[in-house]
């Protein structure tokens, strides 16, 4: 089967039961996508499939055939880290960083839908577990990006 990951086309032959998270981590060596559980409860494996957030631990690899997948490795560009990534760094929006890949993509997906309120940002990350930060600095960082992009 073929799929696009971070803009590049891949041809892969996963066994039918292979999960997207394992396809990415083990077969494509894209280890930025993390695994914190195996039941959709932590969001560490969040990737975008056609710009929509998905749990790669609950998605079978063959379900993304022909689709466009964005992982954390695709969140930054040749211009460097995205404004959200920079805001997270500067605001202390990550500590151990294990949630960061999923968090970045969950918030990016939210920003793709238009200007969010603080509440909507919190909702967007409600499925992304973080044990370190207490979430406030993550939401602050996202809000900073919202202000930069849409004004106060």
């Amino acid at each position, binding site marked *: 089967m073929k799929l696009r990951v971070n803009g590049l086309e891949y041809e892969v032959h996963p066994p039918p039961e292979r999960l997207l998270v394992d396809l990415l981590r083990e077969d494509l060596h894209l280890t930025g996508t993390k695994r914190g559980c195996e*039941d959709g409860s932590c969001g560490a494996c969040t990737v975008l499939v056609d710009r929509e957030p998905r749990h790669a631990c609950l998605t079978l690899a063959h379900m993304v055939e022909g689709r466009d997948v964005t992982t954390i490795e695709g969140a930054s560009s040749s211009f460097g880290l995205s404004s959200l990534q920079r805001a997270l760094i500067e605001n202390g929006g990550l500590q151990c960083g294990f949630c960061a890949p999923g968090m970045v993509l969950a918030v990016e997906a939210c920003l793709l839908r238009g200007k969010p309120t603080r509440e909507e940002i919190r909702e967007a990350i*409600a499925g992304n577990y973080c044990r370190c930060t207490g*979430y*406030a600095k993550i939401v602050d960082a996202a809000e900073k990006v919202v202000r930069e992009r849409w004004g106060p």
Partner: protein
Amino acid sequence: MTKVGNRIPLVDAPLKVAGTATYAGDIARSGMLAGKIVRSPEAHARILSIDVWEAASEPGVAAILTGDRYPVPFGVLPITHDETMLAVRKVRYRGEGVVAIAATSIEAAERAARKVRVEYERLPEYDDPEVSAGPVTEKIHERAVGNTNLQKEVQQSFGPVDEAFRDAAHIVTVRGRFAGVTHAALEPHAVVADFASDGRLTVWSSTQVPHYLHLALSEVLGIPEHRVRVVKPTVGGGFGGKGDPFPHELVAAALSIEAQRPVRIVLGREEVFYLNHGRHPTRNTVRIAADAEGQLRGLDVDALIDGGAASSFGTVTTYYNGVLSVGPYHIPAFRYRGRRAYTNKPPSGAMRAHGSVNTRYSIEVGMDMLAEELHVDPTELRLRNFLPPDTTTLNGFRITSNSVARCLGAARARSEWTSKFRALPLGEGIGVACGFFISGSNSPIHFTPKFPQSTVHLKIDVDGGVTVHSGAADIGQGSDTVLAQIVADVLGVGIDRVRVAAVDTDTAPVDLGSYSSRVTFMMGNAARRAAEAMLAQLRNAAAQITGQPAEKFVAAEDRLSLPDHPEVAVAYLDAVHAAMEHTGALQSSGSYESPRIGGDFKGARAGTSPSYSFAAYVAQVKVDTDLGRIRVKNVWAAFDCGRPINPLLVEGQIEGSIHMGLGQLLGEEMHYRGTRLMNPSLLEYRTISPEDMPEVECLLVGDADPEGPFGAKEAGEGPLPPVLPAVANAVYDAIGIRFLDLPLTPDKVWRAIEARRKEGGLVKPPRPEDHDR
């Protein structure tokens, strides 16, 4: 230009946020096998037979291991080695490893695992520490006390305790019950082990204690220490949960030896819950005696803690449940009885604010009750009783810097306490609590051979980059950043010149690891000394170049110059090159040893620390009296960590601690039915969601500590304990009900509210000044 004291982002954040930081589970080695552990479905049973014949013939299986191969017991404390890498002859908790398999893929290992046959003979199961404390028919471990299943018993008494309680004008008694909670770091434990053809073993592991793991690998596997190498990659959170050497780490190494191939083991989330080593389920009784003026006269603490099936840090936990109650108040008489019982549950161990959370809860709720009996404001009662700075507690803790009174003042002012206490409408309330915590344990766990608690090495070569070798484990809290800040600050160079090498026991000097909030204080002091020794070499070079006295040079902004004659200056890189002309790369070393503190009695060292953090929190809540839901709206967290090296990171520690503390208070629970863990998943283990987090205002109040690096003290654990009782006291202010049985789930709160309504009504408690009317 100084880096210390500024809000410097984590030096490794750009990698983490881009998904390129390497965690243990991301490591792949050529020829690597996948390891899988077959775990016991029984809580307490003799192993009659293990049949791996069918499993071994599965395609792809390279090695199978059972407990009798490496039966050497280990444990983080040298005095209580009672864990083995796989069960030997009997299993002691559900989830204990029995057989380990290495195969060419994880699927193959799992297929083989399903074919392992183990025959068990059930033994009596112990789920209640009260029962374990009495005579038992089956000892869980031979080393348990007498004919009981007690692991440890501590009795201490200081000062005239009986007189204090006999003569007291007021005595309050609090009986607290606390469910066990667990660290639930997002990264599941992962390890890669490679026993290579040169006879050297390398282990990459998500660990907080590379040095202890190093020792355990050598002891259990019988490989000399110098042929064992432990590397700590980026770690996805620890909180104490990666603070022991663990069975799976030893198993991966043993499988690699058997298979002569690298082996990776990544635990599933359920396995992480069974590994546990989290906060002990606890029952405590705290009695506080006070005179008519509200001066504390005595404190009597009794704690029975459920250790699960292994010792882990438990001996320390048993002490900490008592000794960490001698502050932040002046206690003239103190008695403690602590007992830790083995049960057939996953082991308990050290978790953030180790051993101090549950006793602190009962004390701070007790202080609230005492204030009410005395008809005084609870902040006022606390102010009357605080320890001063520069004092010694009755059990020999040396208190140096202490700004707890200023913390309380700040939290009170920012929260507008006086206008809110007992004055908010029914269902809304405000509460206060205080606390203190050690900045590292004064006595290291391992004392032979003798070595400093922390050592830091620096190296500068022609490129001018400063390489820092340290064994201190950054587990997300930011210790690498603190290291880089300190070194850059002393050398007067930009922080990007400093590169902190990953912890590698081959190259890093021994450091005891990340626990007991020791790192900033101890590693920080070592780093400062190492950097000063390096600076001396650069100053000498500057002196040689300019002919000016070396000690006059100050380092800042990539140069060394004379403050009075800024035109006399040597660029940093020129000084480096001059200094290394005849020696090659520059090196320096710095270390930290804590002063000797504490009395001569048994257990005197427990809780002694070169310095203590202090805290005073105010919390405001709203209780939904129809649904029993407690909504924490605000926390004003005033914290004395001395002079913060990095306020951004300190705030992160406070906010994360509040998340974890509120979780324990409001919903987190290792929920057992008998010995059976009912909720081993993140879906069912209820942490606080982003929507339920309160607004947190961090107030960093504190004077520079005389011995801390640049005046800093710990900030990783002390921020946790006060939030639980502050909220509980706020709930009392809101609805007049005391909750002493954690967690305060909505059903429990709702039942208490209903009962109170039937008894005659839900009302706010009276104000102190209304009592006399």
